[in-house]
């Protein structure tokens, strides 16, 4: 029982990586209709940036703040430079652009920082905490807490602020939004910036666990895509919950199902998605569109 509890908790821990990347993917999808395959490598770049700063003697938290700001700018810049030319194109064209970004950015990261994996020390120290009978490292707990706060802040931003409302409006019906004096281009860039920031939080805060390398986010990206599918691309809450569910499911499966191993661990999330989508095609939290025919 304690063992199971332990596995669930540590699954939740990794689930937060997928949850935040999935949220980032959702934000971009809602804004520009693009499934951003480059979201993971953008977070990797943020992690490398933090590693550079910290290994040059900067305090971790200060570095985090700077990296988040830089990631925001970088995300918005990517939208302005690379996405703007294809704004309003088909999802297929958008997807190909983000694939090109993935290929290009991954190479650029490797050119700047090299292929060798690097280590980033945990800002939470090496201690561990007991939670209801399960033992969690301070890193696991701290990282989860930071991501949780980020997700809540992002949710509150969209739910309660007028800027958030404007961004949602611009995402949904750009033509109408313009007629209501909303600068749609700026909103989309903001959306990408915000998504990059959310992804950067995950990249930096989990870097001590994942290790810093060009491929550090690869499998997380795939799980995040799966999570976004599970939650329904339209639902931000769904993406987050989807990420957590997949984190737990993957962890439990590799522990309790014989023969899964790390190479086939990805079976589990997709099996989960498969089942869920067969029952609820719109995803866990997606709404069947209520738009009239």
């Amino acid at each position, binding site marked *: 029982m304690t063992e199971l509890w332990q596995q669930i908790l540590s699954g939740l821990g990794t689930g937060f990586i997928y949850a935040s990347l999935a949220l980032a993917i959702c934000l971009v999808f809602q804004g520009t209709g693009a499934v951003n395959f480059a979201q993971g490598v953008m977070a990797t770049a943020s992690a490398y940036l933090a590693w550079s700063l910290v290994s040059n003697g900067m305090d971790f938290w200060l570095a985090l703040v700077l990296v988040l700001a830089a990631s925001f700018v970088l995300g918005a810049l990517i939208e302005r430079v690379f996405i703007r030319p294809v704004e309003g194109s088909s999802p297929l064209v958008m997807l190909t652009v983000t694939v090109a970004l993935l290929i290009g950015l991954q190479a650029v990261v490797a050119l700047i920082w090299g292929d060798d994996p690097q280590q980033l020390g945990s800002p939470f120290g090496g201690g561990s905490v007991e939670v209801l009978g399960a033992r969690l490292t301070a890193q696991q707990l701290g990282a989860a807490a930071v991501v949780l706060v980020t997700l809540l802040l992002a949710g509150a931003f969209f739910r309660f602020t*007028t800027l958030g*409302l*404007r961004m*949602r*409006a611009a995402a*949904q*019906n750009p*033509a*109408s*939004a*313009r*007629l*209501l*004096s*909303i*600068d*749609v281009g700026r909103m989309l860039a903001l959306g990408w910036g915000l998504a990059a920031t959310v992804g950067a939080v995950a990249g930096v805060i989990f870097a001590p666990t994942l290790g810093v390398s060009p491929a550090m986010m690869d499998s997380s990206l795939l799980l995040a895509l799966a999570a976004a599918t599970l939650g329904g691309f*339209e639902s931000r809450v769904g993406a987050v919950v989807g990420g957590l569910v997949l984190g737990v499911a993957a962890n439990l499966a590799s522990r309790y199902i014989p023969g899964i191993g790390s190479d086939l661990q990805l079976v589990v999330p997709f099996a989960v998605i498969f089942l869920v989508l067969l029952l609820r095609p719109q995803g866990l939290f997606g709404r069947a*569109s*209520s*738009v*009239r025919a």
Partner: protein
Amino acid sequence: MTLLQLTGVRAAYDGVQALHGMDLAVTEGEMVALLGANGAGKTTTLRAVSGTVSVEGAVLLDGQDVTGWAAHRVARLGVGHVPEGRGTFVDLTVEENLTLGALARAKRLRGQVKEDLAAVHELFPILREFSRRQAGALSGGQQQMLAIARAILGRPRLLLVDEPSLGLAPMVTTEILRSLRVLQAEWQLAVLLAEQNARRALAVVDRAYVLESGRVVASGSAAELRENTAVQDAYLGAEQTGRPA
């Protein structure tokens, strides 16, 4: 004082010329109709003003040349536009749709949102009743009401309304046109109204322009146009003779 002035405005979509040198003016606080058949250029004229189609010529708003401006910049000058096909945010609630409208208003009017919202609810009670509902769940006609309400809440100086009668029950259309008239007086709101149904429009507006093939072919006060059978016959159809079946 002239609020809106179009001089020699030409516009084209995908190589198809829709406006061939449009000239018209709207004075502050005036209600003006654009009449004419399908494809005469009414919608394009409204779009030329709000910056949602690229134009040649000159569009002056309160003396300022806004030709070629992005739509959101024109909107900031106090131009509201109820587009053809409603353009509601279907996944947002009715309330959120209205809030977005109110956010578009000038800063000095921000304090009056509550009263104005009450006025809008008075006009369209269904919007209060459904305020938590997704806009997409409304019927076609209800969405049209929402689009008009949203634009009004922006407290524009110039409101462009494209075919308010589209998909609306006759009683509702009459009610909307009357309400626009009242608001126009209370809020110093100028209205440019594109409408197929000339009789209905001429009953409420001050003046009207008759368009054909992207040009103005006749204009005058509502009373003049109501009397002018030549114009009626040539461009608007003899609607007074609409007889009981």
